[in-house]
């Protein structure tokens, strides 16, 4: 037990914020989580390739059976233009979903310390603490403020206003389909693999994710797919991100909000360009949606008693499957540093920062390079996947 119990506020209650809240609580901090959303978070069918650190909280505390919150597949496959399998290797990865992990973490945290609808709009620190102001009028004083407020972090914009989100030059069309929508033959074929199709100007992938039935708690797999397509900044992109209400979205267009003519164009392109099974996956998805791909790097993550973790610090492209793992790693290392410094927050953040900056820079560099090769047609068919946190391959979880 530490000499003092640092009073800690976590800004943002998603996967990174919850992992920070849990590990810091267990390290002896008094933790409150402020999440700006008024309702519990729901991932838009987002699949997550697991890394050991992503589920470390569950495994170390034997709280959640990982096999109930994730699915495995036997194969990593590359599919040719005709829908044929041109390369096939054993698959050492596990797949989960945002919703499964979020619910699992949320169940571990104290419900009365997880505050929905609280947006932190200001924080000022002095020698002894941080004053935190919420839009709701609530104000708090804390020893430590952990900012885990995601890709469009307002904390990052306050602390590092020059660290802008840089559009990577491509978007992902994505969606999920279940067995009933897809038909059982194609479903069972895709269910057992992570499947890639490499194109001259983009790539398509599918993998199975667990969907937890709210009522029964039973897990049944769905197919999660992503089609990464190059679209330069300009009128075409502006048009694509304009939703049904005529609103130009900055980072994503949600399921159900994509304009019908854009979905029609997607299906036409899929029929013309994709292997027939993948065109069918696209066609059978009732509500595909769009995610823009960004990079973002910060030059600092620790600012006295305030720190940035996860996507609030570095935003990396999805090709390493390391986004949620990086946030979890930032959180675990932070709680270890706090314990190490016996609750001295400023010392802990200072010693924590260097390793996490390096991690962020490495993930960013690796995903940029993978993204370049996936999007210009130079990714070699049959190559091992770029999944991994510190190095490629360290996310193996068979």
């Amino acid at each position, binding site marked *: 037990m530490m000499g003092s119990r640092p009073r800690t506020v976590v800004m943002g209650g998603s996967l990174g914020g919850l992992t920070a809240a849990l590990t810091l609580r267990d390290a002896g901090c008094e933790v409150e989580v402020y999440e700006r959303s008024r309702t519990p978070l729901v991932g838009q069918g987002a699949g997550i390739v697991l890394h050991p650190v992503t589920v470390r909280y569950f495994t170390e505390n034997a709280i959640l059976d990982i096999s109930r919150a994730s699915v495995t597949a036997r194969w990593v496959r590359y599919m040719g233009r005709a829908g044929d399998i041109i390369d096939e290797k054993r698959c050492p990865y596990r797949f989960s979903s945002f919703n499964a992990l979020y619910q699992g973490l949320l169940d571990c945290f104290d419900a009365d310390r997880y505050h929905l609808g609280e947006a932190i709009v200001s924080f000022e620190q002095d020698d002894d603490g941080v004053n935190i102001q919420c839009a*709701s009028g609530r104000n708090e004083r804390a020893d430590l403020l952990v900012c885990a407020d995601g890709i469009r972090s307002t904390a990052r914009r306050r602390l590092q206003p020059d660290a802008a989100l840089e559009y990577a030059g491509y978007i992902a069309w994505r969606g999920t389909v279940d067995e009933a929508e897809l038909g059982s033959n194609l479903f069972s074929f895709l269910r057992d693999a992570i499947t890639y199709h490499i194109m001259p100007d983009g790539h398509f992938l599918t993998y199975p994710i667990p969907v937890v039935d709210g009522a029964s708690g039973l897990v049944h797999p769905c197919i999660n797919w992503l089609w990464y397509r190059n679209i330069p900044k300009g009128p075409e992109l502006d048009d694509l991100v304009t939703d049904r209400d005529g609103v130009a979205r900055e980072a994503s267009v949600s399921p159900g909000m994509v304009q019908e003519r854009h979905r029609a164009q997607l299906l036409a392109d899929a029929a013309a360009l994709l292997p027939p099974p993948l065109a069918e996956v696209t066609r059978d998805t009732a509500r595909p949606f769009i995610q823009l791909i960004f990079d973002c790097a910060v030059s600092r993550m620790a600012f006295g008693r305030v720190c940035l973790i996860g996507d609030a610090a570095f935003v990396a492209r999805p090709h390493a499957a390391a986004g949620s793992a990086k946030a979890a790693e930032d959180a675990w290392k932070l709680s270890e540093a706090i314990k190490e410094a016996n609750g001295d927050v400023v010392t802990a953040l200072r010693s924590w920062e260097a390793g996490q900056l390096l991690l962020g820079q490495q993930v960013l560099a690796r995903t940029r390079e993978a993204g370049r090769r996936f999007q210009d047609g130079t990714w070699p068919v049959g190559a091992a996947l770029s999944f991994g946190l510190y190095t490629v391959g360290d996310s193996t979880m068979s």
Partner: protein
Amino acid sequence: MNIKTLQHCGLVVRDLERSRWFYGTVLGMQEVPRPANFTFGGAWFQGGDSQLHLILASDTTAPAGFVDAGPAKHTGLATHLAFEVQDLAAVQTTLARHDIAILGGPMLRGDGAEQIYLHDPDGYLLEFYHWTDRRAQDAPERGAIHA
């Protein structure tokens, strides 16, 4: 009566050069001539259709600056002046370069405006906002502030 616009605000300032730097250099407002018969210290600035009329504190009996609003200044629940800008991120970058602290935000107002609050050198509370396409439901509840 039919009010057309709030055309200017008059601000009493303690140090004219410091305020020229803030409003002219940092915020990029254009200094415009004052009437020749104004023999007291001051300066006028133009931004869009609006003006600021600065009045030197040592040449008047009026005090400079607003009373510090306490925690309410972070969410703008205090007397303030609001400036519409094209790009709030650019304003933030400029403020950071000049080491000027942001007191609150960036945050959504609920009508699509995204805003920040800060103090000018005399302690006037200023709001800067730009228009976004973010929906009302993205905006946090703005509640009463108690000390």
